[in-house]
């Protein structure tokens, strides 16, 4: 018989699929847990991805309604001639708006509230609609000369349509509650909730004064406008005149980006849940394939080739991956429907859920790729099985080659890298992410190996039999120590990192005022009102904690180059905000607690006004590209003032107090037009309300910020974000439990055989139970503790590098997570071994071998 003839025999793929199906069907029970790992991981990724995509699509679709116009021109100063000319040349604005923050009083119940006044001309929004209660209020408030007040304020202050609102010098009836305004997100306007009044009343309020923070907005409805020309050419011209043009597309893109970044973070967390599932896949497939090696030898004996047997199991694993991917994708698509319920206020648009074919394809592809990649190395074992094994002959069969193993490992990391890049669109972060994973896995694997070596070397021979036997189990052949420590360790690492990160985030946002620190801030106090305001505070027996003068100014030139020259420079390095921002500057003779001197010398007072030495914050220095000794000229309300950078300060902006980018020494700005900021500490809500009412009544132009209310808003925002973090943590915990179950079950038969042998030679149930409990306890303790300690290091790095915030770890992971995970491991381990203890040895062996 010639070998040419022998090469020709080949059953087609049909047979391979048939064999894969037959074998898989009978092994379904063993594969359920592996599939569950894939399902959960993919559900996490798909739900986040799909929701993010839907959000982006909805923002783009509703972009005109989001802005309420095709484009708008806005400015924080009254538009000059040139800006007005441009507005005219564009066909004139279809609607105008003047907006500023102010206190509003409600004469009906005496309440006051810090609000954003928006004086709007009839016609706005040009797209979309104001959502009000009653509905007709949106159409009637202009003709009725009434106000629309934010729905939450209406509810909080128990206001009804028909009640009055006093803004500055005018009092208007309230037409209804304002539920939604195009372009505003409820959560972001909670600090200063909106009140809309007809444009014509703005002047009468008498609140538009020098130093007020006013925005002028001009809305256009020009559907056929060339947005690109507007964005580039008109915008450049407007920029020279301190105005800005935004098109509906650029605004929605910017908004989409903001949510995209948030989504990216969640995507990564979901991806880690998926990777955790992959740890389970790898270990489970390893044991699964080991179980199949005898069948592979038989198939080879009957005439199947190496490739055929390899392909049977490859098809099987890919099919499980596909099925897992499909179920995970469906679950993810269902889960995403929950997101808007929890995130409602955070979202800028109503998100209509649709199913993107791209995401569905990604879910399926991810399922197959992850399963095959992580199964490839154990799968290669089938290639080296000798048919001689059917004859009980010990062969010197080759094992997987080291090179092939390295190739598979490289493939896995390449995939992780590409997938992270797809999520993050940044090679640096993607490499850092992959490096983080490699380090975490290596450290955990190192700990497991060290542990095994240590117990081998320092074996506690004096311990009792159950304890010794449980320790022996940790390093016997085919032990699961490495897999279990990796699974438990990565799970604990991830979950406690999430908790620690939450700590850092909450700490950073924790503005809870300590007793005695300011909790009421009064802005826009005119110099003439200063004494009276201070007296009012003192008469109410509250302390005046700060009385800070504020002078507004703009940068005129940097190192001799005028702002306009810098703006025209296409390769400028100076940040745009430096050139456009109206700075609120103070003067004093000392630095305060939230500041520290970084460079130069602090100059408390000067008498020579030719070149004033000022102090700037480090971020200002960086963005303006200046350092100590550089010259800056400011336009102080029409007067040019030459300065030199005398010192650079580091400012802790997270401290809830008045911080400044630019500080002048005493002796320069005292006579400049200025207003003041006064802070005080009020112990209870009742006193705070009384003081606010009195100030608003006597000084309608003064704005009061009650830090307690700000805190409530921030807390609300954080609660929503923590919900998302907890949601993702839940996925990781669930995946972790499944991985654990998988790992424990795969080693179950081995343990059962040993336990049955022990029982056969007379071990009592309680002794076996003790051995198993101790073994799982050691694994639980080591895995959980290493994971949590590793997360301490990573959280410290995150706090230091990303959040730039001090990190004080909470005790939760140590007091709850650590014992919780250890007990869970023991529980899962024992519950899976209960059949050994309950049944006679022979029955167990017969049952388990099936």
């Amino acid at each position, binding site marked *: *018989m*010639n*070998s040419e003839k*022998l*090469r*020709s*025999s*080949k*059953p*087609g793929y049909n*047979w391979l699929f*048939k*064999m894969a199906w*037959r*074998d898989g*069907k*009978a*092994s379904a029970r063993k594969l359920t847990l592996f599939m569950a790992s894939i399902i959960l991981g993919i559900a996490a990724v798909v739900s986040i991805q799909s929701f993010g995509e839907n959000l982006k699509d909805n923002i783009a679709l509703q972009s005109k309604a989001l802005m309420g116009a095709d484009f708008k021109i806005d400015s924080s100063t009254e538009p000059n001639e040139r800006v007005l000319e441009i507005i005219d040349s564009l066909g004139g604005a279809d609607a105008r708006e003047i907006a500023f923050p102010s206190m509003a009083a409600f004469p009906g119940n005496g309440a006051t509230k810090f609000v954003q006044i928006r004086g709007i001309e009839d016609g706005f929004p040009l797209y979309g609609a104001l959502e009000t209660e009653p509905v007709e209020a949106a159409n009637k408030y202009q003709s009725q000369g009434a106000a629309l007040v934010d729905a939450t304020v209406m509810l909080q202050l128990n206001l009804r349509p028909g009640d009055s609102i006093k803004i500055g010098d005018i009092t208007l009836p309230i037409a209804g509650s304002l539920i939604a305004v195009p372009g505003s997100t409820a959560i972001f306007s909670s600090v200063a909730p909106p009140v809309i009044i007809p444009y014509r009343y703005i002047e009468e309020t008498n609140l538009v004064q020098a130093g007020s923070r006013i925005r002028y907005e001009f809305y256009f409805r020009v559907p056929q406008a060339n947005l690109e020309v507007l964005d580039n050419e008109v915008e450049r011209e407007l920029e020279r005149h301190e105005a800005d043009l935004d098109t509906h597309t650029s605004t929605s893109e910017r908004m989409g980006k903001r949510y995209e970044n948030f989504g990216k973070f969640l995507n990564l967390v979901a991806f880690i849940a998926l990777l955790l599932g992959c740890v389970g896949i790898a270990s489970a497939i390893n044991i699964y394939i080991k179980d199949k090696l*005898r*069948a592979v030898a*038989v*198939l*080879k*004996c*009957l*005439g*199947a*080739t*190496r*490739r*055929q047997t390899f392909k049977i199991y490859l098809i099987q694993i890919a099919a499980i991956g596909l099925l897992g991917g499909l179920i995970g994708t469906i679950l993810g698509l269902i889960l995403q429907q929950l997101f808007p319920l929890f995130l409602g206020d955070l979202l800028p648009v109503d998100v209509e859920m649709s199913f993107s074919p791209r995401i569905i394809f990604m879910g399926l592809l991810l399922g197959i790729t992850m399963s095959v990649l992580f199964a490839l190395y154990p799968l290669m074992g089938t290639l080296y099985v*000798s*048919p*001689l094994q*059917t*004859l*009980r*002959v010990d*062969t*010197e069969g080759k094992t997987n080659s080291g090179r092939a193993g390295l190739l598979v490992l490289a493939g896995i990391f390449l995939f992780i890298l590409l997938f992270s890049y797809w999520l993050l669109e940044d090679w640096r972060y993607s490499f850092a992410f992959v490096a983080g994973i490699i380090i975490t896995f290596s450290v955990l694997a190192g700990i497991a190996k060290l542990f095994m070596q240590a117990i081998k070397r320092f074996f506690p021979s004096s311990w009792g039999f159950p304890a010794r036997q449980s320790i022996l189990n940790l390093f016997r052949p085919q032990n699961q120590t490495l897999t279990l420590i990796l699974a438990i360790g990565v799970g604990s690492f991830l979950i406690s990192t999430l908790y620690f990160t939450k700590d850092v985030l909450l700490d950073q946002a924790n503005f809870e005022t300590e007793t005695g620190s300011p909790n009421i801030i009064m802005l826009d106090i005119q110099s003439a009102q200063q004494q009276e305001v201070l007296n009012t505070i003192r008469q109410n027996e509250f302390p005046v904690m700060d009385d800070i003068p504020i002078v507004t100014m703009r940068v005129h030139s940097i190192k001799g180059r005028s702002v306009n020259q810098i703006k025209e420079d296409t390769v400028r390095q100076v940040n745009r905000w430096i050139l456009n921002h109206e700075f609120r500057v103070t003067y004093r003779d000392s630095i305060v607690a939230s500041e520290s001197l970084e460079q130069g010398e602090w100059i408390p007072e000067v008498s020579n006004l030719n070149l004033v030495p000022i102090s700037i914050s480090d971020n200002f220095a960086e963005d303006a590209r200046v350092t100590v000794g550089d010259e800056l000229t400011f336009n102080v309300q029409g007067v040019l003032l030459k300065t030199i950078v005398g010192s650079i300060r580091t400012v802790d902006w997270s401290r809830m107090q008045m911080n400044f980018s630019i500080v002048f020494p005493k002796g320069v700005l005292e006579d400049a037009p200025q207003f003041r900021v006064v802070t005080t500490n009020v112990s209870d809500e009742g006193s705070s309300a009384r003081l606010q009412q009195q100030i608003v009544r006597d000084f309608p132009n003064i704005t009061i910020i009650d830090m307690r209310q700000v805190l409530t808003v921030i807390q609300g925002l954080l609660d929503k974000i923590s919900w998302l973090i907890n949601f993702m943590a839940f996925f990781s915990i669930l995946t972790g439990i499944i991985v654990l179950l998988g790992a424990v079950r795969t080693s179950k038969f081995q343990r059962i055989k040993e336990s049955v042998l022990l029982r056969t030679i007379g071990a009592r149930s309680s002794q076996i139970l003790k051995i198993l409990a101790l073994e799982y306890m050691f694994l639980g303790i080591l895995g959980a503790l290493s994971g949590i300690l590793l997360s301490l290091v990573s959280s410290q790095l995150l706090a230091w590098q990303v959040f730039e915030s001090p990190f004080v770890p909470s005790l939760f992971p140590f007091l709850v997570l650590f014992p919780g995970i250890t007990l869970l491991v023991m529980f899962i381990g024992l519950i899976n071994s209960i059949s050994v203890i309950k049944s006679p040895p022979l029955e167990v062996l017969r049952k388990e*071998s*099936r």
Partner: protein
Amino acid sequence: MAKILNVHNLEKTYSSGDRKLTVLHDISFDIEERETFAIVGPSGSGKTTLLGLCAGLDQPDSGNITLCGADIGSLTEDERAVLRNRNIGFVFQDFQLLPTLTALENVAVPLELQGSKDASKIGRELLEKVGLGDRINHYPSQLSGGEQQRVAVARAFSNSPSILFADEPTGNLDAETGEKVIELLFNLNKESGTTLVIVTHDLELAQKTGRILKLKGGKIVDNTVNTSL
């Protein structure tokens, strides 16, 4: 009668750590078509290794094996697999049924590997012949040891092999069941005209074959025609 198997100057050595262990030493013999042949010898004499080499499950270190006209030493592993599939049937001591396949699927596998469309039909007929017509959809774990070995016998004949190798076919069965399985094996063999090679240490079983090859310490000590038949 033509020779189906020719073994010439066969040597096989295994390594165990630094030690080399010669399992088979200068083995030469022939088997003719339709012959029944037993390889006997004490434990460790090399009978199973010899069977594995003759069936193309392994490569000799030196010497030649010609099976069904093919020089086994010159074939790749996959070519040997195809050779086995077309020409050889196996019966093992521990049955070696695929645990995740039913009795019928187990019997059909060798034919399916050939791409036969009648695999299921032939498998069903063979299972009827071995008395398991009512158990075709049972998994190995649902069958007794004797039933499993009958399925293995049916599988061994499914591809109409030219030669059938049986390795201690009664080794895992009680005497009565073993007897029945052997009867079945010999009857099917007679019916299909297959060459039968049995490895056994059961001399009673060996006496049922036409020729007996005795091994001891990896060497042939006797190769005689069984005149008692």
